[in-house]
């Protein structure tokens, strides 16, 4: 009898275990699809809602290149029956009775950066046909897509005599692209000395997303090592060409330190895609422009000026490259008191 009770218990546990397994599987599915949290409808429309093909291409009729360049606009065209005079007469092989458009088409264009899973809606103030859009990819990505989504309201005869029904015809498509990085890094340095004084300089692209090249940038400098009496003041050196020879003129700004100062140096800034950290260099060099001629050991977070043979024209420099090979070299005058 005890054996039989044990069997019954085991069977019930087995039943419960089985149920738990299924529940666990459902929970897992939900965890795997967090975007569906709270969704109670199925993926297939229960009423007629035709999906029709769409093509997107360049305004000259050519295919969208698989590789685009940041900041360069392209004008695109969407081609779908949604812009035709009459709606489709069939959906999935079934005839749609007496279809009529009842609204104008609505269309949306996006650039999706799959590396960040973020999209940007495209918009333009240029007067274009409803099926056209100017898309300017502003950020580089190795994995992106241009997508176009359009829908249009239509009516068709209901099975109930004398009645009609409304529905949407849907059309969408995407073209995968990558976007080349043509913007050099925007890097600067933060300097501090033993007595707590500091100076910082940073770079800001201005105007942003400029094309055609060259890119321009402003260099901003601030801190007691820049203007001792006004450490909060920001000096801006405008419209330097963003690239390999960014030189802050000594008459506009400099980092001023004592001859026995010990400089602590930190890099600030970033690239609009990916910095190539292996190529990052900074320190003190002799002269500005061309290739930096270091007089201090490269990439030392602390430099004792007393240990250096200070050249006639010392500069702080930061030499940064991104993974695309865009390079920025910035020189800021170093004045020794």
């Amino acid at each position, binding site marked *: 009898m005890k054996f039989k009770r044990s069997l019954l218990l085991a069977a019930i546990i087995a039943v419960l275990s*089985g149920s738990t*397994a299924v529940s666990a599987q459902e929970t897992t599915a939900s965890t795997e*699809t967090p975007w569906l949290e709270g969704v*109670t409808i199925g993926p297939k*429309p229960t009423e007629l809602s035709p*999906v029709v093909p769409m093509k997107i291409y360049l305004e000259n009729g050519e295919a969208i290149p698989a590789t685009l360049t940041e900041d360069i606009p392209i004008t695109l065209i969407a081609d779908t029956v949604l812009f035709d005079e009459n709606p489709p007469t069939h959906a999935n092989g079934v005839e749609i009775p007496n279809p009529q458009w009842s609204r104008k088409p609505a269309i*949306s264009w996006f650039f999706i950066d799959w590396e960040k899973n973020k999209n940007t*809606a495209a918009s333009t103030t240029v007067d274009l046909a409803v099926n056209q859009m100017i898309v300017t990819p502003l950020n580089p990505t190795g994995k992106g897509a241009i997508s176009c989504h359009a829908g249009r309201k239509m009516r068709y005869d209901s099975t109930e005599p004398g009645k009609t029904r*409304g529905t949407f015809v849907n059309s969408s498509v995407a073209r995968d692209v990558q976007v080349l990085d043509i913007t050099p890094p925007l890097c600067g340095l933060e300097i501090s000395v033993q007595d707590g004084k500091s100076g910082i300089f940073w770079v800001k692209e201005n105007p942003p997303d400029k094309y055609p090249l060259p890119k321009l940038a402003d260099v901003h400098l601030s801190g007691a090592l820049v203007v001792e009496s006004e450490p909060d003041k920001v000096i801006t050196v405008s419209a330097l060409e963003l690239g390999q020879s960014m030189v802050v003129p000594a008459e506009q700004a400099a980092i001023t330190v004592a001859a026995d100062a010990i400089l602590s140096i930190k890099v600030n800034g970033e690239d609009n895609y990916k910095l190539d950290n292996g190529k990052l260099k900074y320190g003190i060099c002799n002269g500005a422009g061309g290739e930096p001629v270091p007089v201090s050991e490269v990439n030392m977070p602390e430099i004792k000026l007393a240990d250096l043979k200070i050249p006639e024209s010392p500069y702080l420099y930061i030499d940064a490259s991104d993974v695309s090979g865009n390079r920025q070299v910035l020189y800021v005058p170093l004045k020794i008191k």
Partner: protein
Amino acid sequence: MKLGYKFWLIVAAFMVCGTVGPVMAQGTEAAADATAGTEAVEIPESTDMTLGAKDDKYVMPEGFRGKNTEEGDLQWLEDVGYLMQENSDLYNVDAAAIAEASKFTSEPNINWEVKKEDSEGNLVTETSDNTNKATNDSNITDPGYYQVHNGGARQVSTAGGAEGEETPDAAGGAETSTTETAEGAEGEGETKTVTAQQRIGIEVHDCTSPDVWVAFQEGAGSIDMAKSEEELKANMVSKIIENLGKPFSTDVKDYEEASYVFLEEGRDEERNSIPWEKTARLSIAGTLFNERGAPKFETGKLGSKIDQADYRNHVNVVGGEDKSLKGVYVRRNVPFIFAAISTDNGNKRATAGEVTAKIETADGEEVMKDGASYMFRVPNYPREQYQDQPEYFFTTVANDKDGNVTTIRMPLYVVDTSAAFEGGKNQ
């Protein structure tokens, strides 16, 4: 008893089989899908999507306020947040429903848009939100015809080794398309972005009473009152639009030329409240709202009454001795004019329209102008001293096209010219 145990054992065994069965079947299907991956499979460009309101408690029935029942649009009330939901095979765990032996190589990218139909039938984007969620709160705060749109996209691959594959600094200058599978990857195939989209039409119904501005302006001497009335109206039209119905100033010095009643939806934080909690803000400014003629700016919030059947609101202001708006006080023998205009949120307060406004006696008889302006020669205030004189009321009625109403009814008192007016340009 023995039979009982056996029965339960059999039931338990069946239940175990029943619960495990589907899991096994699913596993078999997945295995079959995997083997099918050896054949070339074309990934479609797009797929179906469903879209609807999940929380439909306040979705109005078809035919609400006489709207076409065959259009298939949802009937919403302005300022009520509705939870929308959508679904597509793009959001599944596996990509089998998109293409055989394919897999998803990204999470879905999900975008919610609201477009409003303009006067020419064009659908103009009002909001665009990349949420990557298949549910979304949608609160539309202005009436009109809208379309809520959901656009979904996801990367699908039939290439064996595509999942989690790193793109080797593609933005760094590689000239190959991402759609091609890297050489040496496990199996051949393609990776592409598959899209889905769906829209739903929504009639958003106006539940807000229109804003109303009323201005009273006294005149004297040789002032051309007809011309003044036109100028007053024109001035009000530009200001009510510019200020979205709110008072153009809270400084009493700005009300020396004319006195105003402002009745509008309220301050920013008071606007767009849900239809059954709507309020209005009454502001009075100038010298004509007390018997002393003292300049003032006063403001206060008042309730609105909603019709529970059709959700139309009525803001009704009744002035009187015991009310915050006692009435309007004009001087005996001093000509005056008034003008009333309104704006409505139905077109985002973009245009102003005239409203019905008049002076009437207690029995409803309209008092007409004396030439180009109104003028009373016999005082009727204080009422206890002039009980033989008629009571006058200023009334105004503003209706929007959806049937929301704003009304004002307040006493109009004629004070003796010896009354001590402290302000006003005509002293």
